[in-house]
């Protein structure tokens, strides 16, 4: 939740993180490789898979798991971009509401008679614009992203409701409907889209100059500015990209359901943040990886699907999800604290 105006805990954590970077060189190689949050995620993923298989004989079935993954992939695509935003030291809680808003814009325009391709384009434009609005409030008005996006989350959800009312809008052409049933090489198309985006963003973050600069901005915005990095421009780009990702996710959901309602993806912000945190991205910025988030998505898919197919009451599921979020953040903090010594 660090912002340019913040002082205190966030600041010291950041300074420590810088020190840690230098200190890390001295540790033995096996520690560098093994003691990473992503490894924890991977271990949990494997463990969860075995537990889920033991719980229900119906779980261990690749087709079923891939099919079920389609429900989570929509949030997952947003979570990938959210990873970049959090590494850069900001956060955004509004994309789930924005998914609903963009999908409602799309459906409303389609119903008003606009060609479907144009309506889809409009949804993406609205997504980018709303993302830019978040960026404007955070970067130019210098409001803390964590609170301001709580405001815009309420606002976007409200606008979606005003636009669509309390009914579902549907009647889309058959080629648009049911993207999650389309399979390529045995894998549903949304899962392929998710994986492709993960690869592109992973390469971007790890191997491009801008990608490295995102880490620097998250580690210390002041230092980044002194080093001549255009902090504001990069962050603005990330907010807009997040808006676009939300629009894409909204359209995927519209295709899967063949209809759109204002309350779709409600509560999705928790899932998205959970995916990023579970993947070992540092909440104060400066650290994290796309690989971690990618693994975390599969971890969530396995846990949620495993519990549902074993008929475990939703009660237990809610508690596991909430506890998981807190435990993953604590664990990540400990691992980063440990690597500092």
């Amino acid at each position, binding site marked *: 939740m660090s912002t340019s105006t913040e002082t205190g805990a966030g600041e010291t954590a950041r300074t420590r993180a810088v020190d840690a970077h230098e200190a890390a060189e001295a540790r033995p190689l096996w520690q560098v490789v093994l003691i990473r949050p992503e490894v924890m995620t991977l271990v*949990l993923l494997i463990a969860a898979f075995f537990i889920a298989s033991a719980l229900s004989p119906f779980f261990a079935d690749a087709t079923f798991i891939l099919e079920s993954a389609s429900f989570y992939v929509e949030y997952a695509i947003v979570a990938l971009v959210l990873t970049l935003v959090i590494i850069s030291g900001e956060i955004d809680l509004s994309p789930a509401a924005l998914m609903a808003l963009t999908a409602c814009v799309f459906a409303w325009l389609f119903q008003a008679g606009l060609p479907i391709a144009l309506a889809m384009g409009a949804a993406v434009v609205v997504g980018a614009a709303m993302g830019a609005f978040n960026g404007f409030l955070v970067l130019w008005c210098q409001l803390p992203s964590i609170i301001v996006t709580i405001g815009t989350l309420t606002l976007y959800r409200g606008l979606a409701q005003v636009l669509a009312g309390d009914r579902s809008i549907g009647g889309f052409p058959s080629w648009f409907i049911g993207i999650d049933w389309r399979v390529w090489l045995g894998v549903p198309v949304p899962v392929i889209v998710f994986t492709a985006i993960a690869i592109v963003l992973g390469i971007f973050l790890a191997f491009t100059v801008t990608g490295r600069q995102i880490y620097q901005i998250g580690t210390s915005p002041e230092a980044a500015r002194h080093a001549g990095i255009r902090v504001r421009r990069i962050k603005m780009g990330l907010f807009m990209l997040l808006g676009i990702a939300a629009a894409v996710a909204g359209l995927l959901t519209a295709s899967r359901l063949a209809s759109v309602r204002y309350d779709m993806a409600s509560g999705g912000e928790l899932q998205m943040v959970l995916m990023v945190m579970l993947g070992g991205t540092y909440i104060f910025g400066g650290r994290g990886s796309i690989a971690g988030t990618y693994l975390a998505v599969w971890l969530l898919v396995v846990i949620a699907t495993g519990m549902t197919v074993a008929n475990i009451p939703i009660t237990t599921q809610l508690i596991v999800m909430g506890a998981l979020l807190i435990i993953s953040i604590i664990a990540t903090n400990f691992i980063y604290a440990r690597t500092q010594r």
Partner: protein
Amino acid sequence: MKRRTLIAAALAASTVMAAGAAVAQDGIEIVYIPKNTGNPYFDSIVAGFEDGCAELGCTFSTTAPATPEATSQIPFITAQIQRRVDVIAISPNSPDALNQVLDRARDRGILVLAVNGDLVGNEEHRDAGILPVDFTKTGPNQVELLGSMIDYEGEIAILSATTDAPDQNTWIAAMNDVLENDPKYENMELVATVYGDDEPQKSTTEAEALLQTYPNLRGIISPTTVGVAAAAQVIQSAGVADEVELTGLGTPNQMRPFIKDGTVEAFQLWSPYNQGWLAAHFAVGVRNGDIEIAPGNTFEVPNLGTVTIEDKNVINTQAELTTFTAENIDDFDF
């Protein structure tokens, strides 16, 4: 060391999942998916299924999402398909968002029944709909009940659920129709239809606004369980039970105190228990080949008599609404 304990803690959290395990079954396996957990109304339907299956020897289970949001049931349906159950009975949260996944279930040979609410306009995506009552009679029944309380005279208002709730809108349209066309109701004037979104706070505020905006209001119809309870609470608080009559659709447990203290004279509903009971008998009959699903066919259900499959494969559990008053309310517990 610290790290190891942490991972252990994380694992411990995931093993909370070990609460219940699935066992493969012989015989017919029925699963019922209500709108959401925590809704006492659906517990009665579940009880009907349980008793039905206990008698018929089928295996029954129930599972539900936390919220009644349109898409929240989808992962649960997918999981049940994977569990290879024979029958999925569902009280749908959306008339259209479930189309795709229900089609998939039917492709796999699963019998899909809509229970308590139908996929209005998308009936081809389920095998049959088991509805509580003949919905075309619900609106007129309610108008008649309120009319009898206010001597068929004065201003009345409707407090509904959401503006697009399909069942409520069907009933409200029928209410408007009889109020306009039946001379018996010519002195009753419908002054407002408002929507409380099935939320206690909003329903309460809407009901209070009704009392304030229409000082001459004689009666309120609230054809939704949340709305009628909120309106009863408002009338009781304002102390206007003598001036304003209230009726609607509510559950006996929810309305009991208001009937006892005279805030509400009578309200109506149907039997959710019988729906579960009927659905279990119907499902087993179809699976065993005793019942063929086609409009016009009939079958026997113990305690309910002969039941007819209507147009669009709709099955009505009872014809007219049950009216609850101070005399009979203690016979019911749901």
